């Protein structure tokens, strides 16, 4: 059960990878997350999440070409797999159906 679930932060990371398209590697993901959420994304946390996502089969990765930046070390690029897309869409659907079941005035009143 736990293997296929998608946590909140995992979902964010997965979406970010999808948004970054061909430039999704760890540092870029961190920066992008920080830009959108406004909170600091620690490399260690993101790295661990990427590792877990890959284990669950939602992303796959490949090493890029070596450049002189980063001390000559290659970057690992991530892309969302089919299973990843499915789980993202499913999460979105769950939210939307929940949103739809909320009467509009109910929420506005509390704001």
């Amino acid at each position: 059960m736990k293997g296929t679930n998608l946590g909140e932060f995992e979902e964010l990371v997965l979406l970010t990878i999808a948004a970054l398209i061909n430039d999704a590697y760890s540092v870029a993901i961190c920066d992008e997350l920080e830009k959108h959420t406004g909170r600091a994304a620690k490399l260690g946390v993101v790295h661990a999440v990427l590792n877990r996502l890959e284990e669950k089969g939602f992303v796959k990765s490949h090493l890029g070409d070596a450049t002189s930046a980063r001390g000559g070390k290659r970057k690992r690029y991530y892309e969302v797999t089919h299973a990843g897309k499915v789980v993202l869409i499913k999460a979105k659907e769950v939210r939307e159906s929940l949103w739809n079941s909320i009467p509009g005035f109910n929420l506005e009143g509390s704001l």
Partner: protein
Amino acid sequence: MRSFNTKSKKTEPPQPPRWAQRLLAWYCRPSILEDLQGDLNEYFERNLTMKGPRKARWIYCLDVLKFFRPYTIRKPDFINLFIHWIMLGSYLKTSRRSLVRNKLFSFINIVGLAVSMSVGLLVISFVADILAYDDFHEKRDRIYRVITTFKTPEQPPVDLASTSVKVGQRIRKSVPGIDALTILRNGFGGDATVGETTVPLGGHWADASFFKVFTFPLLEGNPATALKDPYSLVLTEKTAKKLFGDVDPLGKTVRLDTLNYTVTGLMKDVPKLSHIQFEALASFSTAEAQFTRKDPNFYGWDNIWQNYVYMVLPVQTKPESVLQALNTFTKQENSGLVNRTVSVSLQPLKEASLGPKLHNAIGPTMVPIVIWVLSGLALVIILSACFNYTNLSIARSLRRSREVGVRKIIGALKSHVLGQFMAESVIIALMALIVSFGLFLFLRTQFLALDPFINNLVSLEVSGWVILYYILLAILVGLLAGFLPALFFSRIKPIQVLRDVSALKVFRRVTLRKTLIIIQYGLSLIFITTTLIGYAQYRSFLTFDLGFTTDNILNINLKGNKGAVLANELSQIPGVVEVSKSQLITSLGSMGGTTMKYKDSQDSALVWHNMVDEHYLPIHKHKLLAGTNFTRHPKKGEEESEVIVNEQVIRRFNIAKRNPQKALGEQVVVDKKKLTIVGVLKDFHYGTMEKQIEPVMFRYFTDQLGGYLNVKVATTDLPATMANIEEVWRKLDKIHPMEAKFYDDQIEEAYQQFAIMIKVIGFVAFLAICIAFLGLLGMVVFMTETRLKEISIRKVLGASEGGLVYLLSKSFLNLLLLAAFVALPATCLFFDQVVLVNFAYHQPIRVNELVISVLVVMLPAFLMIVSQTLNAARKNPAKVLKSD
């Protein structure tokens, strides 16, 4: 790769710390390593511009440590370990072969390690014993002792292990929540008589809760009541055996002096490693019954000299909570004291045996510094032997590099080679351990025989735990000694070695090896000079002109007997010239003093004293500057009227403007008695050499008990005279054996601690020299062997033998000289500034001590170097060169 890095470093911006990079590469799983390194590098570069290089490095290190997580860690390499296991047989075989092939080097290594480790074993046993003190008490972690600090305005504060009875009683009454508290008083003892047998007995008075606090199992009797009633006595097994034989002692009567005691308990003997030692315990109520009438201050707050208070705190209770209560009533009680304060604090039981030096200690105490010094000495010796191993192994690497090359080509990894050589050194160290254990058994007897104090203090038994520590020590020594050589071997490049052995840079680490030799010889020199300077000082203490004579004076401890009768009998013996009485023997460290006042009743000073009779001054040839010996010889203390003082007294009180002649007839007040000065003595040494000469007075020996007889002996047949004296003693005192010592011997005993220190350091010096010598021998042999061809060619080309010897030995001799230049001034400075300032009277450091120490260390080394190089230089070049 490395050369690239080192070159580019200068031009490139700062790099992340190297060790952190290595750590990451070491633990991180290879599949994600590169990517992770890249990420960290990217952040590092970013931080470099934003936060500066220092912070960037710091963050990098933190990140490396933070990334140490389950998913990043590399799986242990089981195959590698398995290969180690398979190859073990091969490692052992090659190690054994190389040991046998190089007998000299193996000998040097094993003997050096064994000798040094035997000292290590001794120190381990010693420390283990000291730390095991009082471990047999079940409540050992909760037992605390009340210790006391006594302050007067005139003198520095005195720290005491003893305290007052009152403290114990007040704690018992007013501090709630203490599990048990017991009060002890020392000084119980005397001659115990049962029927016909009389045995001297020593012990303490202890109250009924003694057995609640301490775990001394009773074989017979009730621990709760054994020490309750007055005149109850608890005997140890050994004492009971002496007194009663095999008869059950419980309920029987023992007569001590004039009082009858009932035996209420029989306990197991006190273990050796206990800080409280006794043969018998009497109930504290006995002491109360005996002393409260005689001594009104028995329960006084400032009667802090003979009593000990121990308490058990409940689990979880901190001593601070008791201390607070203590402080409040300390304040109350001190307000009742004039001119002095008594403050108390708590000390855990462990510190009673290993802790700060306190006066009136109840049993043996060890100061931590001694343990540190001993461990330090052992460490230095062991390190020295490790240096030898490291040195010789690296030097010999030429011989074994082919083996390593072949191994590597077959597929051994760096870690395999590293493991092999580490294992080899550990095995050698374990072999050395066996030898060193034999040496240790011998050393132990020597060490215990050094001084009765050491023999009482520790047993140095070998137990299971201690053996474990021995093995640990050996393994540690092996790893330490083998680490550098193993690292060196593991870095060998196989192709280079197999193509041409000489490509191996054996001489690259020459500076390291030279430094090691300098350190070894420097330390040896420091030890030997310390020994010699110490010995010279010690000799000077023994032969110092004390201001009086000690020749042929036999001091007999009276042990409570009446001196007059014995003196009379003794003076009849032929060979005995004169007999005098004195309360104590001066110059040995024992002192006694009282306050003296002159005309000004506000001005008092502590003056050391000795009670002597009229024969004392002539026998000891004290020089009188003015006046005479005692003119009146009163029998009772109340009739005392005369005093003889030294120059310091006159100077202190400015009596008669410091004129000895005019000081005669002046009166001083001592012990509320007016005494007339009848003589002024030239200053002499009352205390030991540490002390300055201080004011001293001689008073007349009246009716006090105890003290000594000083017998001046002049005889050609000493054994006969001694036998006569002993016979007289035995007639008068049938219980105590005679305790008679010559003054000169006593002075030697007084400085025995120095003799012990000198022996220990001298022994260490001897070992250090031996080990350094062995190491140097190995190096010289190796050097001449490898340069044999060069020597032969030089010889063929016309070099003289002398020239060759000079060439070969020059570098070694330079090392020795350098070691001397560092070590000698350091030792001299240390002694001059730190050690000798503690002694008010000492000899200056003389040049010949330094010269001798240099000779002792350098001469064997020098002879060895010359003989070895000469040997090489004399070899027939034709034979050497033919074989190639």
